[in-house]
C-alpha cells in the first residue's frame, strides 16, 4: 500500500507543480464560474426577497459548468503530448493513477470554489462562510470529480470531446447537484445540521459509490 500512496502523491505533486506554474485550470474554472454568476444576475434580476431562493441554484450551476471545463482541461493536458501513455508505461496500479488524477482535479476545483465564494457573497449580498456550506461544497466536489475523472478519461478519446463530457457527466451527477442545492439553501438560511443531514448522507453515499465504481472502471477505460 505504501507504493500506492507514493504514486498518488507523486501524481498530485506533479499536477500541482505544473498548475502553480501555469494556473491554467484554476484560472479557467474561476473566470467561468464568475462570469456565470454575473450572467445569472442579469438573466434572473433577483429582488432581495428572491435571492435566498435562487442563490444556491445559481452557485451550483456556476460550479458545475466551470467544473466540467476544468476536468476537460486537466485531461487535455495529459493527452495532447501523449503523457497519459507515459503514465500507463509505469508499473503503478491503474487505481493509483485514477486516485491521483481525481485528487488533483479536486484540489483545483476546491481552490476555485473557495475564491468564487466571497465574490458570490458580494454579488448576491449573502454571508456564505458557514461550516455547513463548506462541508456541502467539499462533499459535492468529491462526488463530482470522482465521476468526472472517469468520464473525462473517456471523453478525451472521442471526437468532439468538449461536448461529450457534459453529455456524459451531467445526467449522472443530477442527484448530488440536487442535494447540494437544497443543502446549500438550508445552510445559507442558517438551518440546523439535522435539516441538512439527509442530504449530506445522500451526497456521501453517492461519493463512496462513485469512487469505488470509477476506480474499478478506470482500468477498463485506459486499455487500448
Amino acid at each position, binding site marked *: 500500500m505504501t507504493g500506492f500512496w507514493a504514486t498518488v502523491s507523486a501524481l498530485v505533486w506533479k499536477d500541482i507543480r505544473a498548475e502553480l506554474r501555469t494556473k491554467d485550470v484554476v484560472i479557467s474554472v474561476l473566470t467561468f464560474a464568475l462570469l456565470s454568476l454575473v450572467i445569472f444576475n442579469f438573466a434572473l434580476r433577483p429582488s432581495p426577497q428572491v435571492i435566498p431562493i435562487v442563490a444556491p441554484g445559481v452557485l451550483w450551476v456556476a460550479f458545475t459548468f466551470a467544473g466540467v471545463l476544468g476536468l476537460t482541461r486537466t485531461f487535455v493536458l495529459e493527452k495532447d503530448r501523449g503523457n497519459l501513455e507515459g503514465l500507463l508505461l509505469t508499473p503503478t496500479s491503474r487505481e493509483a493513477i485514477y486516485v491521483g488524477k481525481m485528487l488533483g482535479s479536486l484540489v483545483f476545483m476546491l481552490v476555485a470554489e473557495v475564491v468564487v465564494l466571497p465574490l458570490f457573497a458580494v454579488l448576491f449580498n449573502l454571508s456564505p462562510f458557514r461550516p455547513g456550506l463548506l462541508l456541502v461544497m467539499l462533499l459535492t466536489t468529491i462526488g463530482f470529480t470522482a465521476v468526472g475523472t472517469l468520464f473525462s478519461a473517456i471523453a478525451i478519446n472521442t471526437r468532439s470531446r468538449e461536448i461529450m463530457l457534459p*453529455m456524459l457527466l*451531467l445526467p*449522472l451527477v443530477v*442527484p*448530488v447537484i*440536487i442535494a447540494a442545492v*437544497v443543502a446549500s439553501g438550508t445552510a445559507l438560511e442558517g438551518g440546523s445540521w439535522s435539516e441538512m443531514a439527509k442530504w449530506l448522507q445522500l451526497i456521501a*453515499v453517492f461519493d463512496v459509490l462513485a469512487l469505488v465504481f470509477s476506480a474499478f*472502471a478506470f482500468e477498463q477505460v485506459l486499455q*487500448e
Partner: protein
Amino acid sequence: MSTNTMVRNGLLVLSGAMMLLSLYLIFRWVPTEKNLGVSQRIFYFHVPLAWAGFLAFFFVMVGSVGYLWKRTDGWDHMAYSAVEIGVLFTTLMLITGILWAKPVWEVWWTWDPRLTTSLILWLIYVAYLMLRAYSPRGEQGARYAAVLGIAGFFDVPIVYLSIHWWRTVHPEAVVGPAATSNLYSAMFITLMISVVTFTLLFICLLLERLSLRRSEHELEAARDLVETLR
C-alpha cells in the same frame, strides 16, 4: 430457414397478433374511466412503453457487465441494440406522457419525480448513443459504452430518490398521477395484456436488431478484408 429466423418470424407474428388484440381491448373493450375520460386510454400505451424501456435498459446493464467480463462481441451487440430500442420506447413514453398530461393536469410537464427521472434516464441513454457515435470504432468504443451502461443503470435509483426528496422538501400542489392501485379489473386485464404485448415487441425488435448488427459486423469485416487485399 434457420431456427433463428424461424423463431424471429414466429415472434413477429405472435406480437403482431397480440398488438391487434391489445388495440381491440384498448379502444373497444375496456370501459372509459369515469374521472379522466377517454384520454385515459393512452395509459395502456404509456405504462407498457415505460416498462419495456426499463426492461431494455436492464438488458443494457447485463450486456455491459457481460462485455467487460468476457470481452466477446455478443454481449456488446446486445447492450448496444437494447439501448437503441430502449431510447425509442422511452421517447414514446415521454411523448405519450406529455400528451396525456395536458388534458388531465392542464400542463404539458410537471417536475414530478417519475417524470423527471424518466427524462434523466432518457438523457443518459441518448448520451450513450452519442458516445457510440463519437468513440473510436471497435473494442475501445464498446468498453467506454459498457462503463456508461453500468453507471447509468445504477445511477437511476439514486436520481429518483434525490428528486423524490427534493419534491417533498417543497410541498407545492403536486399534480402527480393518482395512485392506480385499485384499478377496475377490466382495466387491469387490458393493461397486463398490453404489457405482455410490448414485452414481446421488445424481444422481437431486439432479435431483429441483433441479427442486423451481426450482418453489419460481417460486412465490415468483409470490407476490411477487401481493403487489405487491395
